[in-house]
């Protein structure tokens, strides 16, 4: 079983995002970076599949040279091959990202065979485009299911479940396929110290993707104005329960 996981380096933001003075980027001077949460689960899922069925976990990222940190993060929890599509820091839009990934997948597969499974996160938290995995699937002509929160993989097929309106949708797919997963599919492990040591030494295969202008032309970024009055204090401790009850009554949520 050969699994490829595509991950993205994203900033870790606090309760407020700050935009650079030119309004084009978020100010990441004091921010750390991480693998986006859905994708962290995707890596974990891949590692578990390979632990069970044998095979390889390749992890690919498209991003600036610092994104190698996220590849090593993935290696620390069990990824075996690291692939870096090194950008000059410019933002690749979903179309450009998908094209770059597809080109590299072709090259990699030509050498080491088809990936049975290509995993993505359902969406990146920073740009929230919801589409790179699907575009890659179309280009590779492989089936695709998004938002997967439960996955069973056999030698040639997969059963993917996801939530839909409080219920549960099941998809049955033949391999190879493309899946985008959501946080909650598993609880990712923390990297062990030996894992970190392996990650430090892991080899990263590098490619240079071609940037192309986006048809969604960013004019600027801004932080929404959230003005909210301070809460009305109903009271302190259990003494506040009558007031709380009256409020629930007023809102109409009591039967």
């Amino acid at each position, binding site marked *: 079983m050969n699994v490829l996981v595509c991950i993205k380096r994203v900033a*870790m933001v606090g309760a*407020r995002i700050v935009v650079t003075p030119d309004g084009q980027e978020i100010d990441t001077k004091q921010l750390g*970076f991480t693998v986006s949460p859905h994708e962290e689960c995707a890596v974990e899922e891949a590692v578990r599949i390979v632990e069970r069925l044998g095979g390889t976990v390749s992890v690919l990222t498209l991003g600036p040279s610092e994104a190698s940190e996220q590849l090593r993060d993935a290696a620390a929890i069990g990824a075996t091959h690291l692939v870096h599509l090194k950008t000059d820091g410019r933002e690749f839009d979903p179309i450009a990202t998908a094209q770059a990934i597809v080109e590299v997948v072709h090259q990699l597969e030509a050498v080491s065979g088809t990936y049975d499974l290509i995993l993505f996160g359902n969406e990146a938290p920073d740009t929230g485009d919801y589409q790179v995995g699907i575009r890659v699937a179309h280009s590779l002509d492989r089936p695709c299911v998004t938002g997967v929160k439960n996955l069973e993989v056999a030698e040639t097929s997969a059963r993917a479940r996801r939530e839909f309106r409080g219920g549960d949708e099941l998809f049955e797919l033949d391999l190879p396929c493309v899946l985008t997963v959501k946080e909650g599919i598993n609880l990712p492990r923390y990297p*062990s*110290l030996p894992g*970190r*040591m392996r990650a430090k030494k892991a080899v990263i295969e590098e490619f240079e993707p071609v940037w192309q202008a986006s048809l969604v032309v960013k004019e600027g970024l801004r932080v929404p104005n959230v003005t909210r009055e301070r809460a009305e204090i109903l009271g302190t401790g259990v003494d506040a329960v009558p007031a709380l009850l009256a409020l629930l009554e007023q809102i109409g949520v009591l039967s």
Partner: protein
Amino acid sequence: MTSMSDTTSRARAVIVGAGIVGNSLACHLARLGWRDLILADKGPMPNPGGSTGHASNFIFPVDYSKMMTQLTDDSTRQYKELGVFTESGGIEIARTDNRRQELRRRASAATAWGVPHRLLSPEEVQELVPYVDTEFIMEGLYFPTVGVVDSLRAGTLMREEAQASGALEVRANTEILGIDLSEDLKSVRAVRTSSGTIETEVVAICCGVWSPRIAQMAGASIPLTPIVHQMISVGPIELFADTLGEISYPIIRDMDTNMYERQHGGDMEVGSYAHRPIIVRPDEIPSIEQSVLSPTEMPFTQEDFDPQLEEALELMPSLLGNEKAGVRYAINGLISMTPDGHPVLGETPEVKGLWSVAASWIKEGPGIARAVAQWMNGDVPDIDLHEADIARFYPHQRTRDHVTARARESFNKMYGIVHPMEQWESQRPTRRSPVFEQEWGLGAVFFETVGWERPYWYDGNDELLEKYSDQVVVRNGEWESRWWSPIISAEHLAMREHCGLVDLSAFVVFDITGPGALDVLQALCVAQMNVAVGRVIYTSLLDERGGFKSDLTIMRLGTQWFRVVTGGSTGMTEKKWFADHLPEDGSAQLSDLTSAWTTFGLWGPRARDVLQACTDDDVTNEGFAFGTCRTIELGGVRVLASRISYVGELGWEIYVPIEEGAIVWDTLFQAGQEHGLIPVGIGVYATTGRLEKGYRAFGNELTADYNLVEAGMARPTVKKANFVGREAYLAQREQDPVARLCTLTVDDHRSSSGTLRYMLGGEPVLSLDGELLVDEKGRPSYVTSAGSGPSVGQHILLAYLPVANAQQGTKLQVEYLGERYPVTVAIVGSTPLFDPENERVRS
């Protein structure tokens, strides 16, 4: 919040910052009876997001500094009272021979401060901490009283105590917007906050890494910088699964790798001071809203920690090497770093009522707060804080460049083996004497003091080694020969035989002038200052309890004109002490002339011959008596000559306008050639010459916890005029002292390996049966100063001894690098070993 910003309130004091320091300070001020206190923090309670919130919270009780050890001890006592202390024990590990020696040196410090400790073999370490690999351990130093504290809880309890007593109002989520000053910009009037303006005369900045930012609002500076300390938490650790509470195994300090490993519940925390120094500017610390964890828990930079992993794994392979234990938490934690490693405490010299209580670790927080509260209350703190006084810094030491350079340099020395004389490499040279070039040419080896480059000895004098070979002791022990040269002894002997020229440019010089000048000095100095114009007076300054505040010399240059001269390292604090006591009516002024005057010391039996060769003025003993000063013409320059000596020789301190310093030096130097004059370094001035004469030094012998009687410096009479500490001094004179300052000589320098070893100071003094000497006030005896006495052929130690032991001829021991050496009490009191009748200085 905006609706409240118009409201104005009043407070006796506003404490900014609700970390361990601010909470403790509020509590201690309340205990001292202060009311109407406001504690404000921009973050939420109980963890507003400062360094307290991510501290590893463990306490090792030993530091080479007595002050730091006492502060830690007091803090530990307070934590215990609050019920937040858990004793775990702690072990410092040596992986190398050098570190092994260092552990022994630390053990001696522990002995001196009465801290329980024991050296352990690798196997003994493993008995206490079963998960270490003994292969990487040479030796361990075990401190059974090491423990961990809950500093957040402690802060909460102290804050709540102050609130419950009605003394304190707490304002969380309140940002300081500005500090308003009086019209003359010299004192605090109000604090503007996001929850309104607070009128107050007192603001205490307890803001840790943010402190410089807040001080700046009032135009003051707090020289510290935020710096990153990396920490990871690894778990779950199987071995810890069944342990109760937070910690069951001793904390390991892996000194040679600059790391510590400390159990925290089910996890192992691994902290590092080994990574590159990562400096953050105070204005770059993210806001609470921008931060993912908290402003002082910055994003972890894996690549900086990576090199440490291997060493951590080496020491604890089975525990940290378990694949099931993961890194669950990792931060670049911000901590405060100061240029000299000490906290920054006290009222800022720039603004009255603006107090700094910054750069404290968890282990000192409550102790610092208690001492500063006493200080704010106008009392003398129980613990002598002069080493941490914010007034100590010179302008250049307050610059961003200096602070960051020194922080960068000292970061990796946090667990380092730092020699007491070790020199800084960065920011040098900063202050150069006018004869720097001449000294350089003479082969000066420069040591730095408060920015000044001072020749410690001159390599060019090495030919003297042969001449004095029978008197110069060569040190074979590596430790005591570091930052030292036998040339110092040779210079000493040459000076005593002929004469020497010493560059004293680091002196701080300030004039007190005006109709009220005499009153100012009378009110501060122990000595009678109402003396004839032209007299030079050496005097002590005391605090209200009669402890030493300072010692210095003062020249009376006119009826309303006094010149105060003091050492560079303490000059700025002393300047503030004088400035604080100037009359409010403006009848006396202080002007700092440090940068206007340079000083040379010309001392030795031939000093008069040299000086006379350069001047037509009368410099005979009759014409220029000891203890007097006056302006003379030296070549084409008018200089102020002052006939005193710190090395016990005939001679003068010569004060020269700084731009004429070089020509005066050259004149003296040339004239001196036929009289055997040599350049002499500070090694002689500060150590060998001084110790042979038994002269006491401020900070060594003269500290706030000893007095004039104990130091053997009490004069037959006490002047009538009142002065600070007079009452206490009178009382001290009425009682028999419980300790006396003694001069000790070493009877046998031979170590177990046969090498002759020479103490450097700080060593504990023990009875022959190995007990630490402790006087009735609980003060342990330790060597306050140590150095060669080439003219008396002895290695000289000064130490306060309990009266029972303070008898001439008493046999005792000192512990140095883990071994004990026999010593004898040579002198009780201030009689010098060399020239006991002081004939030379008066000749």
